[in-house]
């Protein structure tokens, strides 16, 4: 640590160059990670951040909300299953909404995803403005804040296009999106009145819902499938991946960030290797006067560690600074757990890549100290 710090302060210029590289790389990694997560939020935020462990669907529905139909009464049966601590039935439908009394042909319309839920269930989002869903007001809805940007306000009455159903915005919430559509949380009754308006479109199922989401880490999906007829239980991950387009989209993003990290690893490793190579003579001197390999390696690795920690922190600050000036319409969501995991990955890359230099150090012959100039 001592040597590492002395050298860092002595050769500031050189180390500023290297930390600049690491800062830029981490900036890029965090920025892409934030954008990637923002994009994947558009695809499935409502499920991603839902406090659920499992989701129950109709058998053979491929964990898809649109292919699955269940009776809401199953919720009570599920609650009796081992390990299940809470349940939330949900039904979803795509819709296009406009202001009430606006002209059907000329008014601006917005595509949304209506999610019917039980008021007060764990699927109900926290409102950032307005109030939560009321059982007494089945037409009241909580909508994603992106609708605010489109000019919708609290108290606005909405008409669903191609339907006679009307809703009232009673609350706004944040980051609720599914299949790239803002989510409108309504009561299950309202959803059914709209989605299953046509006679027998509910296949005769009483109080139809599309899925029942489950809380409870101890619950046993296989047991549930056995004890309840005609259902399929998916993990949270399976539920998210079944959102149309999500898996492919997310795969692309992950691949991009993954490549970026591999390339960064190579760049950082090369830099540290060159840095070490330049100091061959110096390490030779240390060895000649009795420094062990371990002593030198410790100093090199701790130097890389200090340099990386500082650079990564600066990279994080830069990322948040950039995010602050991004337009709201840009999907950017850098959550702390991502920051922490990518920081650790970058730090590990730096430290591991300095091990290549370590191999070189171990091979340096103390005799080089005799030969060269200083």
């Amino acid at each position: 640590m001592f040597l590492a710090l002395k050298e860092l302060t002595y050769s500031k210029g050189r180390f500023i160059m290297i930390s600049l590289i690491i800062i830029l790389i981490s900036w890029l990694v965090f920025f892409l990670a934030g954008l990637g997560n923002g994009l994947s939020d558009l695809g499935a935020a409502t499920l991603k951040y839902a406090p659920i462990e499992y989701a129950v669907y109709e058998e053979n529905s491929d964990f898809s909300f649109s292919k699955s139909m269940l009776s809401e009464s199953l919720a009570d049966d599920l609650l009796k299953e081992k390990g299940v601590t809470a349940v939330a039935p949900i039904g979803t439908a795509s819709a296009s909404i406009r202001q009430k009394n606006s002209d059907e042909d000329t008014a601006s319309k917005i595509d949304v995803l209506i999610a019917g839920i039980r008021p007060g269930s764990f699927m109900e989002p926290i409102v950032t403005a307005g109030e939560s869903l009321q059982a007494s007001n089945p037409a009241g809805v909580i909508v994603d804040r992106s609708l605010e940007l489109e000019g919708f306000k609290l108290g606005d009455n909405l008409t669903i296009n191609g339907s006679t159903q009307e809703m009232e915005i009673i609350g706004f919430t944040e980051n609720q999106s599914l299949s790239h559509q803002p989510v409108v949380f309504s009561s299950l009754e309202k959803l059914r009145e709209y989605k299953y308006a046509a006679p027998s479109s509910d296949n005769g199922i009483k109080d139809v819902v599309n899925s029942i989401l489950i809380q409870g880490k101890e619950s046993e999906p296989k047991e549930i499938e056995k004890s309840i007829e005609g259902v399929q239980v998916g993990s949270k991950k399976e539920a998210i991946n079944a959102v149309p387009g999500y898996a492919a989209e997310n795969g692309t993003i992950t691949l991009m960030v993954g490549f970026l990290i591999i390339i960064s690893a190579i760049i950082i490793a090369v830099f540290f290797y060159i840095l070490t190579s330049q100091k061959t003579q110096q390490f030779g001197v240390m060895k000649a006067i009795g420094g062990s390999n371990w002593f030198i390696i410790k100093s090199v690795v701790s130097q890389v560690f200090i340099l990386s920690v500082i650079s990564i922190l600066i990279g994080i600050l830069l990322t948040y600074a950039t995010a602050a000036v991004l337009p709201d319409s840009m999907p950017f969501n850098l959550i702390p757990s991502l920051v922490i995991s990518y920081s650790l990955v970058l730090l590990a890359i730096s430290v591991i890549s300095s091990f290549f230099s370590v191999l070189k150090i171990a091979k340096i012959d103390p005799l080089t100290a005799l030969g060269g100039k200083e």
Partner: protein
Amino acid sequence: MAGLQLKNVSKVYQEGDFETIALNDVTLAVEPGEFIAIIGPSGSGKSTFLSVSGALLQPSKGEVSINDVAISTLKEKELSKVRLEQIGFILQTSNLIPYLTVLDQLLIVKRMGGKVTAQAKEYALRLLADLGMTSKIKKYPNELSGGERQRVAIARSFMNDPDLILADEPTANLDTKRANEVVQLIAQEVKSRGKAAIMVTHDERMLKYCDCVYRIEDGVLSREE
């Protein structure tokens, strides 16, 4: 027997088909309290002799023992411990670490073996004072003259109180007055603390401080009268 022993030591540098016999069947013993000088023309094998004696280089043939330990039996880690604790090297080029101040150059040797104590610091300051470097302890190597750097390297070699001091032309960059002081200092260390010391030099005037003088020519060592 403490001190340094070389028994029938040869060193051959192999470069492709080309062989240089840098040391040829050298036998020598230096006892504690003995200060010897090695002279010889350029390329005769003086630096090679010091490297072999100082556990930097394994001989091609023969055996080198430092304080009765045969260095050919030691592993890399043990060799560095021997160099740290038992040998004080004054290299031909002074070889300081560029980003350390004069004082830290000395203390780093302590750090390699563990902790820097207050006594160690005091000792370092005294050594530097003996070599007339007190006013420069905060300077970096690039702010020193060649002679000053050499003096720091000498102080560094004394830092761990080694049993064997090996000096490769320690006076090369010094004026006559300083050169005399430095060699006197080495001689004094050797006598008062019972160390063994070998100095390679070109400077005939320094030979008067030494107990005996050896000449090396084409790798062959012989005693001067």
